[in-house]
């Protein structure tokens, strides 16, 4: 039974503007990553989440700072929204000494347990059981923490993902399975990889509460994650959230994102992009005006610039410690 009021009704004007700032921060951060990649300063594949920014922003807001998070190669925004330091994150992605992991992890392996971040992952679905374990640990120790694990529509076909869903359900663990259903896994459309494209059905089959919603509406995302977190904390077990969204960029920096998608389809989703929509709502509802938005945007840009200045000033990581071996 849905509650009388949506959790968003609790949000203050500052909160509402903070959500916008978070969306824009992520956009600026990822644009800068792309620029650094194109300038040759950033190694390897870069997986951006353009058009999906409402999800990290809304989910981050709905969680407690000490809640746990595991995510994918496409998770920069979640780390930011969870409070991870921008500068140390940029430094990690640039492979510097002051990076979150001392430059050893790289952008697919961001860790920051101080902010609950238990790993980005390069293996599709690889971090899902980690989150289930963190949820178990929280339940076991009575910490009241929730674990959020974020993954794509393609990841649900990886065995370990489904094993995790079942374990979470049978032990009623406080874990939120947030599926960013952006309709494609790399270049494969959802309908080519699964017969039942409404993934909520699959989750329900494990005996889990599910919800499907507009993942490009930041307030809806906030509501859904807040409700799920409350249910988890109340001991009601895991929740599956299917957020409908779309990446308006390619799978990675060298993929133009077309070929397997039409220009029209991309344009349609660009029109529904979270920043755009939310900015419209904020001004329409008179929470702020154009100038107010511009101020948030330039704040975000400044924060990103500062982070990258820090990162670029950081030296190469020392080799000896790394070569000394893997054990603590």
């Amino acid at each position, binding site marked *: 039974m849905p509650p009388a009021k949506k959790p968003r009704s609790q949000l203050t004007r500052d909160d509402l503007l903070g959500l916008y700032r978070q969306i824009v921060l992520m956009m600026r951060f990822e644009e800068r990553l792309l620029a650094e990649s194109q300038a040759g300063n950033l190694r390897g594949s870069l997986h951006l989440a353009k058009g999906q920014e409402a999800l990290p922003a809304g989910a981050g807001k709905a969680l407690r700072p000490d809640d746990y998070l595991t995510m994918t190669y496409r998770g920069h925004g979640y780390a930011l929204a969870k409070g991870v330091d921008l500068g140390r994150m940029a430094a990690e992605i640039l492979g510097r000494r002051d990076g979150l*992991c001392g430059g050893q992890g790289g952008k697919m392996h961001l860790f920051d347990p101080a902010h609950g971040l238990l790993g980005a992952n390069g293996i599709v679905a690889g971090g899902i059981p980690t*989150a289930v374990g963190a949820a178990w640990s929280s339940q076991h*120790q009575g910490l009241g923490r929730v*674990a959020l694990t974020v993954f794509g529509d393609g990841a649900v076909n990886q065995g370990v993902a489904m094993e995790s869903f079942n*374990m979470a359900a049978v032990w009623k663990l406080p874990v939120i399975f947030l599926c960013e259903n952006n309709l494609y896994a790399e270049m494969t459309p959802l309908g080519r990889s699964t017969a039942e494209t409404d993934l909520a059905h699959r989750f329900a089959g494990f005996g889990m509460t599910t919800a499907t919603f507009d993942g490009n509406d930041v307030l809806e995302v906030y509501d859904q994650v807040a409700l799920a977190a409350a249910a988890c904390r109340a001991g009601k077990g895991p929740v599956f959230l299917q957020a409908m969204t779309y990446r308006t960029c390619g799978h990675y920096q060298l993929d133009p994102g077309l070929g397997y998608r039409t220009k029209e389809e991309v344009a349609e989703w660009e029109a529904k992009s979270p920043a755009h929509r939310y900015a419209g709502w904020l001004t329409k509802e008179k929470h702020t005006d154009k100038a107010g938005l511009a101020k948030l945007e330039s704040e975000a840009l400044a924060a990103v610039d500062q982070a990258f200045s820090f990162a670029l000033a950081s030296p190469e990581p020392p080799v000896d410690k790394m070569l000394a071996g*893997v054990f603590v």
Partner: protein
Amino acid sequence: MSVAGTLETLTFGQAVKAAIAEEMRRDERVVLLGEDVAHHGGMFQVTKGLIDEFGDERVLDTPISESGFIGMALGAALTGLRPVVELMFFDFSLVAMDQLFNQLAKTTAMSGGLPVPLVIRTQGGGYKGAAAQHSQMLEALFLHMPGLKVVAPSSPADAHGLLLSAIRDDNPVFFIEHKQLYAASGPVALGAEQPIGKAHVAREGSDVTIASYSYTLQQALQAADLLAADGVEAEVVDIRTLNPLDLDAVGASLCKTHHLVIAHEAHARCGFGADLAAQVQEKYFDELDAPVLRLCAADVPVPFAKNLEDAVLPSPDKIKSRVLECLGK
């Protein structure tokens, strides 16, 4: 209830259990999970009764989802617990390799130093007619992939002491038990840790060194008896901890005997024996009076029929022959 500090005669299985119980009493962060470990007490009854002492909050039966629950253990280890996982058969590690190698073995390195305090206990090996999918010793895979300590005791005392160390270690430890060893009994100093990273001379000798571990170590001791009857004195080095490896201990023995035979039950190609032989010839080239020889399982999947399985797996006689070959006799 066994009490730390006392000396008892225990089977290998009991020695393992005593170590787990000891650590669970000492440290409430230690939790146990695996298939049928709780209510049933494990397929080999190693965890029998622990649920009664520690409750089902700390001793958890899992679904048949090895990837899932090994991954879960990683999440728990990163958030304040110290899980001890039972993987029912070594062979089943293959369904969980990504979680083992891409996730938990790499977490410390990728994160720039996070501790991952967890132990995975498993049981492997042949000789029981369990055929190709229930008889394997796969330690070589775990040695090739950096990030896991790998321990393979051959006696109750070592099983006990090394498991205590493993549970207290802040790195992930893969702990290998052999199905043929569970019933073997011996004296165990309860609560006495054995250090991870130290080999142990199980029998002294001067003519040849036999390096081995786990169940094959027991066969090596039998081979040494057979050899002694023929006037050959073999020194038997129990490697015990395969990673980190105590190369110095092997070297010390080799400098005495100048002959080395490595015996193990895993396959030969890219096995532990290949690894040790390569390291030994590199570091102790001038000490070797003969090539390092290996006695391993034949490089075919373990067959079912008894005569076929016997032809594939090591035995004291085969180890003895290989030693004589090494000595040019």
